[in-house]
């Protein structure tokens, strides 16, 4: 960061959101920007979408594979250099693929774990030193309602998302009181990841609130838990009432 003459300018708080070129991540980027944050907009392959979004919200687009711990560490350094210390990290990057157990090969299993769980681990270990130096920080991991209730043909996804819960709870204890760690575990949301099967009236009729969720609703939840000062180790699951237990 270059220093300038004159009084320090309040550049606002900084959030880094992985998987922000579409879906829930994109909605979260827009919502955090509206709340006054400078946003690091991470993407894996959709560079054009991330760059366009970053221009719209005066953020920075950053491409890397969250499964690669060194690439994630470099990304965090870039954000800290260009936007300043990171106040909030949102571990959102992910993908969803349905396959019966017998057809989950080692490549899919490992990739699922490295992206969904590793994305959280690698980003956490990269942002924690800076957050410790700042004396505060907030990490939000995106889980899934499926990690709470299970589901057929999604063993890798569910195991990885459930592992995120355990990881978050462990480090919520470990990093308190300086850094808060929470999970937002959405139900079915209208994003490119959602199977077409779940878009119609058939699925909606099984949801107590009668519809799937919107990305902006999840973004609102992410911002809320990111800023809730007395909340850590919590799992907040906006899911239309699918999980009532």
């Amino acid at each position, binding site marked *: 960061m270059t220093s300038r003459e004159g009084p320090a300018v309040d550049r606002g708080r900084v959030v880094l959101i992985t998987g922000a070129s579409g879906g829930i991540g994109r909605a979260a980027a827009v919502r955090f920007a509206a709340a006054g944050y400078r946003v690091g907009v991470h993407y894996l392959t959709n560079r054009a979408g991330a760059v366009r979004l970053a221009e719209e919200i005066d953020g920075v687009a950053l491409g890397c594979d969250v499964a690669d*711990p060194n690439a994630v560490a470099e990304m965090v350094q870039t954000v800290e250099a260009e936007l300043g210390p990171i106040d909030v990290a949102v571990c959102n990057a992910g993908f969803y693929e349905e396959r*019966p*157990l*017998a057809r*989950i090969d*080692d490549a899919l*299993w*490992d990739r699922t*774990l490295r992206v969904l*769980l*590793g994305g959280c*681990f*690698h980003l*956490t*270990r990269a942002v*924690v*030193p800076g957050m*410790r130096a700042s004396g505060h920080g907030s990490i939000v991991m995106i889980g899934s309602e*499926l*990690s*709470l*209730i*299970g*589901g*057929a*043909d*999604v*063993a*890798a996804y*569910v*195991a*990885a*998302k*459930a*592992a*995120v*819960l*355990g*990881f*978050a*709870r*462990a*480090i*919520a*204890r*470990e*990093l308190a009181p300086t850094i808060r760690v929470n999970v937002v575990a959405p139900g079915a949301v209208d994003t490119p990841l959602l199977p077409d099967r779940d878009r119609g009236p058939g699925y909606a009729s099984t949801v107590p609130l009668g519809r799937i969720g919107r990305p902006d609703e999840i973004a609102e939840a992410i911002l809320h838990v990111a800023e809730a000062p007395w909340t850590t*180790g919590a799992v907040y699951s906006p899911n239309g009432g699918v999980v009532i237990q």
Partner: protein
Amino acid sequence: MTRPTALDRPAADRPVALVTGAAGGLGSALVAALEADGWAVAGATHHGGPYAADLADPAAADDLVRRVIGTLGRLDLLVANHAAMTMAPVETYPVDDWWLVVDTNLSGSFRLARAAAAHLASRRGAMVFISSEWGIIGWPEASAYAASKAGLIGLTKALARELAPDVRVNAVAPGVIDTAQLQVDADSAGVDLDEIRRRYAAATPLGRIADPQEIAATVVFLASAGGAFYTGQVLQPNGGTTTA
């Protein structure tokens, strides 16, 4: 309700269980308890013995399940009990160590389940994954272990739905057990074994840590006729630590 237990069957007709991590404190108790209930048990260990398997190796699970079925003729119960455990602050946790814990505990158990599922379905069998209290409540400096053990709970719920009604899938998430594993905890806390036992006991409503045999009894129950209507559940013998 009185139903026959496995002990009532002739020896050649006894159901077969595969228990991983069989050399450890809980594992040896699991083998003894299942055998006492009439199971023929293949106890898999990291090294040595007829069922040696390094479950961090992706090829190990298929090979192990094949060996058990080849030797004992069938498989009715999988108890995934093996575990690796290290502790370190998350930001300095060596990445390779972190993934070794996750891949041994979670990926190794997944591969065992995948290897055994079709055969277990044909036998109307069961799986039990040994999770941990720390997979539910978390623990400082145990981020890899907690992630792996929470992941096993997700795996349990996913497979319970997917494999029903042919295979029942449950998890047991024990509290602190009095085994040699406690040395890792003691080292992390910088105290000796007696002190770590005392600390854990003081933090447990029942005022003590668990004996391996009482955790093994929970697994035997899930595998018995009395457990026949359980699937997708997480039983928590933990002395009351998760009531808060």
